[in-house]
């Protein structure tokens, strides 16, 4: 096991960088309609920001900000958003994932409703990908114990 290493430079730089990384991740998710990007890419960037936090500090610091229970819930939450949007379309009388039906409850026409539906599922995908990346990373580096720093 590597001894706990406190390095002021690394920790300060990471503290400054991480918000920017996260904002960039959100930008990539939201701007997927117009430029390369989308839920997966943005989700991975968001997950990477937490992984950077784990590397610079230790696992406990990262877990203080996003605990295990909440993280597991995020894994499910993104998919519930995704399949929930599809299910709403089903309830509104369309086929599954037919976003144009969302135009019945949103104040937009059916083509813009498709665009909004895409944004909705990208957000869902982003949440799930972020949570899954963090979850797998924590499981792998701490061999499932979630207690010590990087072993």
């Amino acid at each position, binding site marked *: 096991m590597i001894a706990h290493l406190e390095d002021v430079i690394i920790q300060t730089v990471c503290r400054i960088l991480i918000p920017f990384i996260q904002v960039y991740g959100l930008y990539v998710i939201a701007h*997927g*309609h*117009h*430029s*390369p*990007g*989308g*839920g997966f890419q943005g989700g991975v960037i968001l997950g990477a920001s937490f992984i950077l936090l784990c590397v610079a500090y230790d696992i406990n610091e990262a877990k203080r900000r996003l605990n295990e229970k909440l993280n*597991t819930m995020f*894994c*499910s939450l*993104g*998919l519930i958003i*995704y*399949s929930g949007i*599809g299910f709403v379309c089903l309830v509104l009388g369309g086929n*599954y*994932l037919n*976003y144009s039906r969302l135009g019945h409850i949103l104040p937009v026409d059916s*083509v*813009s409703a*498709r*665009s909004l*539906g*895409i944004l909705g*599922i*990208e957000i*869902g*995908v982003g949440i*799930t*990908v972020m*949570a*899954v990346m963090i*979850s*797998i990373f924590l*499981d*792998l580096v701490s*061999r*499932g*114990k*979630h207690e010590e720093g990087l072993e």
Partner: protein
Amino acid sequence: MKLLALIAVLMTGALLLYGTIDMPDWGDPHSPASIHVSPRYIEKTMEETAVPNVVTSVLADYRSYDTLGETVVIFTAAMACILLIRRPRT
């Protein structure tokens, strides 16, 4: 064992190379893949989904069910890792 593996690999490679003889050239704009299904995605994406990024509109709308499946795949991976190596707190 290694020799056997090498022979299997070389045979598979030779078969794959044999298959490429009839494939369209690289970058051919008239290959079947470029003219059968995909043109509709590019030409209709603006009027049907209002999303200029064609990859996003195909990923999240035309073939969104695949994307649901792929999100489920990584969800499965997370659950598998938790099941396999996470130690429950005592």
